[in-house]
C-alpha cells in the first residue's frame, strides 16, 4: 500500500540527487512511497537486501558528521553495497589537493555512488559534473540537504498522515541552515504553510520570496502551528556578532514549555540533530516522548536514504 494514496507518483529519473529544488511533487511522492517499504524492512529481524550487491558506495565527508554518515553507511550496507567512508581529515585535501583532484582520484576507482558532504555551497553540483557515478548531496554549505528534508517529510507523513495544510514553523539559525532551505522547498511544494522564525540577524535576505511567512519572535510565529522544527545553532559557522549571547538567544528563541503553549496543543517537535540542549531547546522538552519525534526522524533517515540509493542505482542500469 503506497504511503500517498491520492497523489500521483513519478519515478525520479536523474542520475544525481543534489537538491530538493531539482525535484517535482510526483517525484517526491515516489521517493517517499519507496521509503515506506524500507521502514517496514528495517523493523524486521533480517534487514538485509541484495539490491546493491556488487555496487560500491563512497561516503566522502568533508565535514564531521555522526548521524548522517552512519545513516548513509547503514542504508548502503542494508542494500548489500560495499560502503567506504572517506575521512577527509586524513586525506590529501588538507595538503592542498582540490575537491576536483580528489573526485578524479576516487572516480578512477569506479565507485557507483558518491555521497558527499562539504562545507561549501555547490560542492556536490561541482563534483557531479566531474565524476561518472551518481552523486548524492549529504549537505553542501548553507544550500541544501535533500535527504534530511525527505526524511522530515516522511516522519511527518507517517506521524500525522498528511503534509498538505499543516502549519510548520522552522525556528533558529535559518541563515546558515541547509536543512531549513531544503525543508522550505519541500514542505511548501507539498502544500504546507511554512513559517520561519529567527532573530533578524540570522534571517537570510529576501527569504519571504521562497513562499514562507517570516517571523522574528517565537510567540507570533508559533501561533497555532502543528509542527515545530528546531534548527541547530551553527555556532561554528558564525563569523560575526549575529547574537549577543547564547543566554539571550535561549531567552527569546529557544523552544521551552512556555513558548510551546502558543502552538497547537498537540504540536510535535522535530530537530535535525545534533541538539544543543539549553541553547535552542529546553533539555526536558527535547526528550518529551509526547512531543518530540526526533527519534523517529533518525529511523526514517535510514529508510529514505535506502530509497534514494535504490532509485539512483536503478537509473544507472
Amino acid at each position, binding site marked *: 500500500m503506497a504511503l500517498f494514496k491520492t497523489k500521483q507518483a513519478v519515478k525520479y529519473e536523474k542520475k544525481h540527487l543534489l537538491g530538493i529544488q531539482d525535484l517535482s511533487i510526483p517525484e517526491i511522492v515516489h521517493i517517499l512511497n519507496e521509503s515506506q517499504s524500507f521502514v517496514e524492512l528495517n523493523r524486521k529481524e533480517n534487514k538485509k537486501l541484495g539490491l546493491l550487491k556488487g555496487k560500491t558506495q563512497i561516503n566522502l565527508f568533508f565535514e564531521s558528521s555522526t548521524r548522517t554518515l552512519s545513516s548513509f553507511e547503514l542504508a548502503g550496507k542494508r542494500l548489500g553495497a560495499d560502503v567506504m567512508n572517506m575521512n577527509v581529515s586524513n586525506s590529501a585535501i588538507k595538503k592542498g589537493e*582540490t*575537491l*576536483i583532484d580528489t573526485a578524479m582520484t576516487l572516480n578512477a576507482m569506479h565507485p557507483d555512488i558518491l555521497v558527499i558532504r*562539504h562545507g*561549501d*555551497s*555547490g*560542492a556536490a*553540483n*561541482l563534483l557531479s559534473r566531474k565524476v561518472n557515478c551518481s552523486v548524492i548531496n549529504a549537505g*553542501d*554549505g*548553507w*544550500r*541544501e540537504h535533500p535527504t534530511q528534508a525527505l526524511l522530515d517529510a516522511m516522519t511527518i507523513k507517517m506521524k500525522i498522515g498528511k503534509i498538505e495544510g499543516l502549519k510548520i514553523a522552522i525556528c533558529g539559525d535559518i541563515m546558515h541552515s*541547509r536543512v531549513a*532551505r531544503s525543508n522550505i522547498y519541500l514542505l511548501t511544494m507539498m502544500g504546507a504553510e511554512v513559517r520561519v522564525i529567527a532573530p533578524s540577524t540570522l534571517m*537570510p*535576505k*529576501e*527569504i519571504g*520570496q*521562497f513562499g514562507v511567512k517570516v517571523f522574528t519572535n517565537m510567540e507570533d510565529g508559533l501561533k497555532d502551528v502543528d509542527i515545530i522544527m528546531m534548527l541547530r545553532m551553527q555556532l561554528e559557522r558564525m*563569523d*560575526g556578532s549575529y547574537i549577543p549571547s547564547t543566554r539571550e538567544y535561549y531567552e527569546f528563541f529557544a523552544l521551552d514549555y512556555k513558548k510551546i503553549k502558543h502552538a497547537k496543543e498537540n504540536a510535535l517537535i522535530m530537530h535535525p540533530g545534533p541538539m544543543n540542549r539549553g541553547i535552542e531547546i529546553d533539555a526536558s522538552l527535547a526528550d518529551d516522548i509526547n512531543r518530540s519525534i526526533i527519534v523517529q526522524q533518525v529511523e526514517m533517515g535510514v529508510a529514505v536514504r535506502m530509497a534514494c540509493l535504490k532509485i539512483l542505482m536503478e537509473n544507472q542500469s
Partner: protein
Amino acid sequence: MKSAIINARIIDTKNNIDETGGILINENGLIEAVGKDVTKDNVGDIKVTDCQNKIAIPGIIDGRVFVGEPGFEYKENYTTLSQAAISGGVTSVVTMPNTDPVVDNVSTFDFIKRRARDKSLIKIHSLASLTKNTEGHEICEFGLLKLSGAIGFTDGVKSIQNNNVMDKIFNYAKNQNALVIQFPQDNELSKNGVINEGLIATKLGLKGIPDYAEHLVIERDLRLLNQYKSKYHIALLSSGKSIQIINEWKKKELQFTCGVSINQISLNENDIGEFKTFLKLSPPLRKEQDRLDLIDGIKNELIDIIVSDHKPEDEESKRLTFQTCASGSSGIETFLSLALEQFHNGNLDLKTIIKCITENPAKIFGMKAGSLEKGMPADITVFDLNKPWVVKRENLKSKSKNTAIEGKKLQGKVEKTYLNGKLVFEI
C-alpha cells in the same frame, strides 16, 4: 613611410569629429591629418587602406587590467596581454599593482617598466599601490614612484579601510599631485562574501555582500576628499545607489571621476545561474536595476570611464567551489564588442561609449592618447559595427580563458589595430 586609412567613419569625441574620411599617418607614426579631406586622391603615392563601412576611433584605453608579472606569469604575461589587447582594439592599458611582489616601491616599479618595455606590444601605464604591500597601513612613496612613471595609486583589489590612513593619503597625494584610485568596499561587511546579498545569495546558500558596503566607503572618501580636493578616481561601481551618492557630491561641485566594469553594465546576478565561477566578480554582479542605473550613470556623465576589469585566472583557480574560487574574468578581447551591445540595444549612443573608452580615460590618467588630432601617436582601432560573432574560449588569445560571456552572441568586431602608425592586428 607614410600611410593612410581612407573612407572610414571617423569618430573622435575629443575633437568632435564624426565624419567619413581618412587618417594620414607620417613616417614617425604620428597623425598628420584627419577628416574628410584625407582621400585617396590627395594623399599622394603612399600605402592606402580602404576602410569603407568601418569605423575608425582612437586606440582604446582600458583603465583596469591585471597582468601576472611578476608572480603570476602562468595567468598572464605582458606578451599574452598584448596579443589579447590588440585583438580587442586596445592600445593602452592601466595595470594594477596586485602582483607578487606588490608594486609598492621604485625598484619593483622599474622592473615592471623594463618588462613592459621589452615584452609588451601595447602601451603599458602602471599604477603603484597606495600602501605598502597593499596592507592599508603605511603609504607608499608617491613622489618617487611618480618620478619613475607611476600614473596613479591604488590598492587594486583592496580598499583602504582605516580612516586615518585614507585621510593621510588624500592629504599627501594633494602635495604630490598624485591620482588616488579607490576600490570601494568595506572589508568587514564584505568579509567572506562572494555574491550580491539578496535572493540569489539566499538561494545558492552563499554569503552575500550588501551594496551599502560600497556606499559606506564612497561616502567616507568623498567627505575626506572634500577636505583636501586631491585627484580622486573611484575604480569600480556596482550599485545603482552609488550613482545617487555621486550625484549629490557632484552637485556640490566636488571634482572626482568614476569607472565601471563592462561586466557590471552587461550582466546581472541572475547570470550566475548554478554556481558559474567565471561570473564570480569583485565587486559582485548585482540586480538588474543596478545594471540599468549604472547605464544611466554613464548617460548622465556621472560615470566617466568603462573598463574591462580584465582579470585573467587560470583554470585551477576557477575549478573550485564558488566560495573558494578566484574572482574576476578575462575581458580585454571582448571589451569593445560587449560595450557595443549597449549601443545595439539602444541603451547608449555610440559617441558616449567611445568617449568612455578613449577620451575620458586619457584625460583621467594623463595619457598622450585617446584622440586623433595632428601630432598624436597614430593609435587607431578600426571596427565593423555590425559584424556578428560568438565568444568562444578557445579563440581567446589571453593566457587565461576565464571569460564571463562564453557562448555569447555579440555584434561588432575589431578588424584592425594600429599602434604608432603600424598595423599590429588585422582579421
